[in-house]
């Protein structure tokens, strides 16, 4: 089955992911793709504790994730890829991984960002990365939990960028 969901969520593994998405999509392998977390033992331990015991967890750098995906390591699983930013998704695609659809679940506010949806705030760099992904034909849907309405994030970004 392979990659069932690719999600951008800067909190990575948390309640919405474990209690909702994993059950909804019957995910049995959570793959965190993040250079910082992959190199930090504290963070790795923290996240590895956060998934249910019956599920597998992998915490990989972007380069490691590319290798694992291209080697078909998740083929027998129902895997969910978690990344913190559209830049990281773009990086993964540029390294040769094919991704057609991305769920954008949470990008939290900081002073250099603009809030465009309840749980999504974007910086100029984020917008650029989303535009690049869009050009590559990646479908981008904003949705925090499965029951929420799917929102086309590019439509919102287009509206925001034509305004300013």
């Amino acid at each position: 089955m392979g990659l069932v969901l690719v999600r951008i969520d800067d909190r990575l593994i948390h309640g919405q992911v474990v209690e909702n998405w994993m059950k909804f999509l019957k995910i049995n392998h959570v793959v965190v793709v993040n250079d910082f977390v992959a190199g930090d033992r504290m963070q790795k331990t923290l996240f590895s504790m956060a998934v249910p015991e019956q599920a597998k967890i992998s915490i990989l750098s972007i380069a490691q994730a590319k290798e694992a995906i291209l080697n078909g390591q998740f083929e027998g699983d129902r895997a969910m890829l978690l990344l913190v930013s559209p830049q990281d998704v773009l990086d993964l695609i540029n390294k040769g991984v094919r991704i057609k659809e991305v769920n954008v679940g949470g990008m939290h506010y900081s002073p250099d960002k603009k809030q465009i949806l309840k749980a999504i705030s974007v910086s100029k760099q984020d917008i650029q990365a989303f535009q690049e992904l869009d050009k590559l034909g990646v479908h981008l849907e904003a949705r925090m939990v499965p029951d929420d309405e799917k929102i086309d994030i590019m439509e919102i970004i287009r509206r925001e960028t034509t305004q300013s």
Partner: protein
Amino acid sequence: MVGFIIITHGDFGRQLVKAAQIILGEQKEIWALSLHEDDGLDTLSERIAKILKKGNERSEGKIIFVDIFGGTPANASLKFVNDEKVEIISGVNLPMLIAGINYRRSLTLKQLARLIRRKGEESILDVKQKFLDRVSKAKDK
């Protein structure tokens, strides 16, 4: 689907439902009752009785979650102790409510009540100790 009634001192239950909805999205057939200083045992029982009649006909029954065994919410619920379509569980917390919501379409009333109780018991952990154990285990590898 099993319906839920959360009964607590103050608005704890109402906020608990909100917290669960942040994680799981909007939910139907969950009612929260707040006990305030001026509410008596009988008025609370009456409010519970009214809610027990609500909900769709396919409903498999209802679970009453209360905050503390021996408190007024629990005592008011005891009036329905002989109702076969009612289960009563104390010590309500977020993991219990989430587990309840996730399984209330697939389990019978009795099975669900048992699962919720188990989830509640398993949800209390010494987080610091658990974390430190993991770190030292990772080191040994």
